[in-house]
């Protein structure tokens, strides 16, 4: 930005500060990963690796996967499967429903369009805290408490998704293209599937990611809606694990690694979409 070439000293000082900060951010991950491989006896020997006479003065052979196998024996794998199912179902349905609604609000002319757009936009400022108690009561009356659908259905129609897709369609789908397809005899559903969806692919990718991540990380809803242990996703299962095995550090570490590894892997593959998606999703307020 500045045209004056920064001096060598200030450059290395900058890097020094950045590296220290990067270490502060990364250290918890490293500690987590290493400690999840330590047995209960080794936990207090050394902050990271247990000291010994192996390579680099580390006792490599005392590292173990036993925390992970114990977790699986305790049925934690079930929670992982639940999380995958909830997050992907919620992401796919929410994306499809919001894309269709956003497209119609952007391109179709019908009575009540302005009203509906205003209602959707207005609902963006409704604080979620207002809905907690009445939603619980509603799910009770619908018989959806402790049901997977009671958890999933409310996540299928997020208003901010409609807002984002309406904007995406307005920006990247020209009217002429839709008209041309219509004249060529393409059905309305065909136009949406074959012409509109491919044009808004970047938004679809970003929205799939943020809804997937949102559901994967959601703690509040499953904590309130679900009671049966075998239905719980990772977020609730891990907090219950901590409630019971507070001092079984290795086990809790392994559970955290299992919970964040899939998201970390996704992130490394799709960094760009993640950052643009998360910053756009946050605008919902």
């Amino acid at each position, binding site marked *: *930005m*500045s045209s004056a070439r*920064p001096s060598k000293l200030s450059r290395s000082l*900058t890097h020094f500060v950045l590296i220290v*900060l*990067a270490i*502060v*951010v990364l250290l*918890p991950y490293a500690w*987590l990963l290493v*400690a999840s491989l330590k047995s209960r006896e080794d*936990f207090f020997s050394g902050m990271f690796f247990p000291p010994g006479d192996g390579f680099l003065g580390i006792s490599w052979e005392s590292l173990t996967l036993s925390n992970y196998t114990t977790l699986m024996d305790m049925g934690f794998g079930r929670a992982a499967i639940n999380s995958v199912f909830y997050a992907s179902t919620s992401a796919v349905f929410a994306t499809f*429903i919001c894309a*269709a609604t956003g497209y*119609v609000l952007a391109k179709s002319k019908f009575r009540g369009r302005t009203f509906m757009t205003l209602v*959707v936009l207005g*609902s963006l*400022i*409704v*604080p*979620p*805290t*207002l*809905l907690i*108690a*009445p*939603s*619980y*009561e*509603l799910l*009770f*009356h619908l018989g959806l408490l402790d049901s997977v659908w009671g958890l999933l259905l*409310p996540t299928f*129609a997020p208003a901010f998704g*409609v807002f984002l897709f309406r904007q995406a369609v307005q920006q990247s789908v020209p009217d002429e293209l839709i008209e041309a397809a219509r004249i060529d005899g393409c*059905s*309305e559903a065909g136009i*949406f599937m074959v012409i509109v969806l491919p044009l808004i692919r970047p938004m679809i990718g970003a929205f799939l990611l943020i809804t997937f991540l949102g559901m*994967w*990380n959601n*703690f*509040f809803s499953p904590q309130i809606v679900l009671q049966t242990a075998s239905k719980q996703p*990772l*977020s*609730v299962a*891990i*907090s219950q*694990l*901590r*409630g019971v095995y*507070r*001092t079984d*550090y290795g086990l809790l570490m392994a*559970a955290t690694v299992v919970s964040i590894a899939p998201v*970390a892997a996704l*992130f490394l593959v799709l960094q760009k979409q993640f*950052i643009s998606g*998360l*910053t756009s999703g946050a605008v919902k*307020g």
Partner: protein
Amino acid sequence: MMSRLSTNKTVFAWAALTPFILLFSIFMVYPLIQSAFLALNQTYGPDTRLFVGTKNFELLVHDPVFWTAIKNTLIYSLGSLFIQLPLAFGLALVLNSRRLRGRSIYRLIFFSPQLMGLAFVAVLGALAFEKRAGLVNRTLAWIMQDASLLEIDWLQEYIMSTLILISLWLYVGFNMIYFLAALQNVNNSLLEAAEIDGAGPLNKLRHVIIPSVRPVATFVVLLSMIGSLQLFELPYILLNGNGGPNNKGLTIVMYLYQNGFELGDLGYASAVGWALALMLIVLALIQIRMVRKEEALR
């Protein structure tokens, strides 16, 4: 021909809208209307309602625990904000230099904690801030060479500081991304003009850079406030479901949760929800005005 086309269009439009309209009405509009009525009732679990009028709100105003929760939540919000913002802005300034090597890697690293769900962060934080065994105390004791530092009781006695420290780890990198985007919009010719006029780096910062990122800064402030006023998962899991010693770590949403789902009074919980909603709506309205203003400027 024309009329068949337009009926097709209408049929498709309504078919595409129906799922959203149904779900939105059931899970958004209906609970929203109910939240007004529910706040005027007392309940014992979700099946009973006893009309009490405005009693819930009268009780709330005189409820010392509620005020403790508000105080804690505000301490957390303002505390994390005032440390977070300068850090995020400073990092963005440093990372904005195009000559810096590895800036995309730094960006990635600083942003990464944002991906972790709050429940997972809470468990990791609980482990890291544990007495004796935790990473934080062990690092402190190692650096200062003082074993008594192993006994710092982050999770009970200093719960508020712990929450703020965790929030820094979580959100500084996230807010940095907004500032980085804002810095891209700083007018280069203005900077050059300032330089020709002999402005030093500090003056450039004060008179050119800060004024042009101010809208984004306001946006980030409001966004963080709206988020942090709803703090729940971190203290709930760190404190194992209660407010900690003397409710030191009780937040507004935790208090809502306790009343609604532990004591079963969804009415009182709704009243707490309305009190918080009021604060959030004010912030959201300011935010909308800001966005409008910015769009008008563009």
